[in-house]
C-alpha cells in the first residue's frame, strides 16, 4: 500500500497526523486536572514560594549571648562593636556560661561570647587576651556570621593595640606596620553573598524538569488507564508511525514549556531582584536543548510507569539528589565519580550548570559549550530511546488488538 503513495504524500500524511496528535494531546492536557496542576499551577506558583523563602538573602542580627567576666572597658568595647556589626546582635547578658548554654538550648541565641576575667589585664600588660566564641553548629550561616564578626573585631582591636607599640612616626607608618600587605576581597557575580542568589537559579531550572517529568508521566498514565487494553498507544489510523507520535506529543509539551521557561527564567528573577545577566541568544540556545531533552527523557520514563501515581513516587524523591548532583551546593569538583556519571544522565545537571553560567555569571554560549553539547547529545539519545519504547508500546497495542480480534472471531465462529 505504501508504495502506491509518493514519498511527499507520505511525509504530508505524517505531518498532518503529527498535528492531529499534537492537538489531541493539548486537549487531554487541559482536560486532565492532575496534568494541569503540574504543567501550569506548580511552575507558576512554586518558584514564587521558593523565591519568597530566600528573598531576604542574608542573615542579619544573629542573636548571641554575652558572658562578660572581665567587666572592663576593653571587653565592653568589644561587645559594643560586636553588637554594631550588621550580622550579629548581643541579645542577652549572662552571669555564667551555664546560663548562656541554657539560652542556646531554648533557641534564644545561636552562640556565646565569653570574656575571661583577665581580658583587660592581659591587654594592659602586653600579653595575649583571649575571647572564647562558642557556636551552635546546627546552622552554618549563623556560625559563619558569629565567627566572622568576632574575628574581624579581634583583628581591628589588635591593630589598634599594636599601633602605639610599633614605633611609627606618622599615621601612615601605623597603617603600614599593622597591615604591610593590603588584601582585597572581591566576591564576583553575587556581590551580596546572598543565599537566594546562589541557590535559586538551580531550583528554578530543576522545577522545569521535575514538573515536566511529572506531567508527562501523569498524562501517559491517564492515557493508559483510559485505554481499553491498558495500552499507551491507541489503535487509530493517526497513530501509524513512531515519529509522528513522539514528535506530536513533544510539540505539545514544548509549546507549553516555552512559556513556562520564559516565565521562570526571566520573570521570576525580575520579581525578586535576583542576579540576571542573561542574553536572549544564549538563553534560547540553552533552553531549547534543555526542554527537549527533558521532554524526551520524560517520555522514555513515562513508558516504564504503569500507574499514573507511581510517577509521583519516582520523580518527587529524586528532586533533592538531582539538585545536589548539579554541584550547586556541594562543589562539583568534589562529587565522587560514580555520582558524576549518574548525574550526567540527567538533563538538569547540565541545565542548572548552564543556566548558572549565563544567568548568574553572564557567560556566553562559548563558555557553556560543554553543557550545550551535552544537552544536545541527551536530546538525541533520549529521542531515540523514546522512539524505541513507543515502538514497543505500538507492538504491544497491536498484539492486544489482534488477540482481541481472534477472541471475537472464535466467539462468533463457535456460535
Amino acid at each position, binding site marked *: 500500500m505504501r508504495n502506491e503513495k509518493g514519498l511527499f504524500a507520505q511525509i504530508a500524511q505524517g505531518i498532518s497526523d503529527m498535528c492531529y496528535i499534537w492537538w489531541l494531546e493539548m486537549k487531554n492536557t487541559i482536560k486532565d486536572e492532575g496534568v494541569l496542576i503540574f504543567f501550569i499551577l506548580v511552575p507558576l506558583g512554586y518558584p514564587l514560594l521558593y523565591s519568597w523563602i530566600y528573598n531576604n538573602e542574608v542573615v542579619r542580627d544573629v542573636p548571641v549571648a554575652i558572658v562578660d567576666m572581665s567587666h572592663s572597658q576593653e571587653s565592653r568595647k568589644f561587645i559594643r562593636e560586636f553588637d554594631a556589626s550588621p550580622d550579629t546582635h548581643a541579645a542577652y547578658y549572662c552571669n555564667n556560661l551555664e546560663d548562656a548554654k541554657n539560652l542556646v538550648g531554648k533557641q534564644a541565641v545561636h552562640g556565646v561570647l565569653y570574656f575571661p576575667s583577665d581580658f583587660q589585664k592581659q591587654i594592659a600588660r602586653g600579653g595575649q587576651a583571649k575571647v572564647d566564641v562558642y557556636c*551552635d553548629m546546627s546552622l552554618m550561616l549563623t556560625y559563619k556570621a558569629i565567627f566572622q564578626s568576632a574575628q574581624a573585631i579581634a583583628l581591628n582591636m589588635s591593630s589598634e593595640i599594636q599601633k602605639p607599640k610599633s614605633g611609627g612616626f606618622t599615621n601612615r607608618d601605623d597603617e603600614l606596620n599593622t597591615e604591610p600587605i593590603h588584601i582585597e576581597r572581591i566576591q564576583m557575580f553575587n556581590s551580596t553573598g546572598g543565599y537566594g542568589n546562589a541557590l535559586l537559579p538551580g531550583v528554578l531550572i530543576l522545577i522545569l524538569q521535575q514538573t515536566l517529568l511529572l506531567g508527562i508521566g501523569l498524562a501517559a498514565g491517564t492515557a493508559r488507564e483510559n485505554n481499553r487494553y491498558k495500552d499507551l498507544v491507541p489503535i487509530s489510523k493517526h497513530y501509524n508511525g513512531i515519529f509522528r507520535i513522539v514528535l506530536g506529543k513533544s510539540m505539545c509539551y514544548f509549546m507549553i514549556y516555552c512559556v513556562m521557561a520564559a516565565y521562570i527564567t526571566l520573570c521570576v528573577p525580575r520579581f525578586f531582584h535576583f542576579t540576571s545577566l542573561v542574553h536572549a541568544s544564549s538563553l534560547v540556545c540553552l533552553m531549547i536543548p534543555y526542554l527537549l531533552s527533558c521532554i524526551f527523557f520524560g517520555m522514555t520514563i513515562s513508558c516504564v510507569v504503569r500507574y499514573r501515581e507511581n510517577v509521583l513516587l519516582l520523580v518527587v524523591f529524586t528532586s533533592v539528589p538531582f539538585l545536589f548532583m548539579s554541584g550547586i551546593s556541594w*562543589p562539583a569538583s568534589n562529587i565522587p565519580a560514580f555520582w558524576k556519571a549518574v548525574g550526567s544522565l540527567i538533563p538538569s545537571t547540565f541545565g542548572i550548570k548552564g543556566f548558572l553560567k549565563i544567568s548568574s555569571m553572564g557567560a556566553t554560549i562559548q563558555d557553556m559549550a560543554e553543557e550545550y553539547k551535552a544537552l544536545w547529545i541527551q536530546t538525541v539519545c533520549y529521542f531515540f530511546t523514546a522512539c524505541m519504547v513507543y515502538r514497543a508500546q505500538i507492538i504491544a497495542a497491536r498484539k492486544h488488538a489482534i488477540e482481541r480480534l481472534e477472541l471475537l472471531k472464535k466467539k462468533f465462529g463457535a456460535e
Partner: protein
Amino acid sequence: MIGGPLIVILFFTSLMDNGQPTDMPCGIVDLDNTSTTRAMTRKLDAFEMTKVTAYYNSVDEAREAIQRGDIYAFLYFPKGTTDKILANRQPTISFYYNGVVMLAGNMMYKDLTTVTTLGSAAVGAAKLSALGKTPVEIKAFLQPVSVNLHMIGNPWANYNVYLSTIMIPGILFLFYFLITAYSIGTELKFNRAHEWMRMADNNIFVAIAGKTIPQFMVFFTVFMCFSWYIYGYLGFPHPGGIGKIVLLALLTVLAAQGFGIFAFGLMPSLRMSMSICSLWGVVGFSAAGATYPVFAMDSMIEAIAQLIPLRHYYMIYQICIFNGYPLSDAWPNIAALIIFAALPLLTLWNVKKAMLNYVYIP
C-alpha cells in the same frame, strides 16, 4: 519501599564522605612573578581545600575561566607587589572568588586569609626576634586579642554531619507521606474499598489501623536502620543518646503517617492527596530552616514553616540529639509532631465516606 530510601541514604553519605570539600580548583594571575609571590602561591596550594590548578596571563582570562567553571577563585598579584613590600609601600593583592558557588568560595577565602595573615605575621615575627623578643612576646604583639573558637558538636565543620542528618530524613518524610496516601488511595482505584471496609466491619478506625500498623513497622525499621547507620556506623555526634534517637524516630514515622492520612481525608482522591503530600514535603527542605535559618525569613514564611513536620524534626534533632539538651527544651516541637500524628482524627470521617461512596475517576 526500602530500595528508594536506601539509595538516598547512600547517595548523601557517600557524596559528602570527605566532610569538607578538598582540593578545590583555584587560579593564579601573577604579574609580579617573584620568589615572594611564588612562595605565597605554594603556601596556598599546600592547604587542604585549595588546589592551584592553572596560571593565567590576565585578570580577564581568569574571569572567563570562572565563568566557564574551570576554577572557583583566583589570586591576583599586580606588577610590583614585591617591590612595594620591600619599600614598605603597602601593595594590594586581590582575591576574586565566585559568590554563586557559595560553599567553595567561602572555604577558599578562609584558606587565603590564613595564608596572607601568616605572610604578614612572618615579616613582623622576623623583625621582632631580631630585636631579641621571646616567642611569647612575639605572639602577644602580633595578636593582642585572639579569638578562641569552639564549634560545639561538630568541631570539624563536617558537612556530612550537617546536611545528611536533615536531607535524608526530609526524603524519608516524603516517602512516608506518599506511600501512606498511595496505599489508601489504591483501594479506591482498584475497587477494593468496599471489601476493605467490610473486613473492618465498616469501622474506619479498624480499617486504617489495619493498614497503617504493618506500614508503621516497616517505616520505623527503615528509620532506625538509617539512625544506626549515621550514628552507629558513621559515628555522627549524638550526645542526646539512644533514648532520644528512638523517640524521634517514633515521632517522625507517626507524624508522617498522620499527615499522609490527613491529606487523603482532606481530598479523597489518590492523585490530589499525593500531589499535596509531595508539594508539602518538597517545600519542607527549604522551610525546615536547616540551611537558611527560619528567623531570617519573612514573618509570613516563618509561620508557614511551623506547618511543616520536617521543621519540627530538625528542631528536635538539633536541640536534643545534636546538642544534647533535655527534651523539655523542644517541647513545642514534640507537641507539634504529636498533633501531626493526631491530625487524621479530623478527616477520618471523610475517608470513610470516600471509601463507601466514591468511585475512582482517572
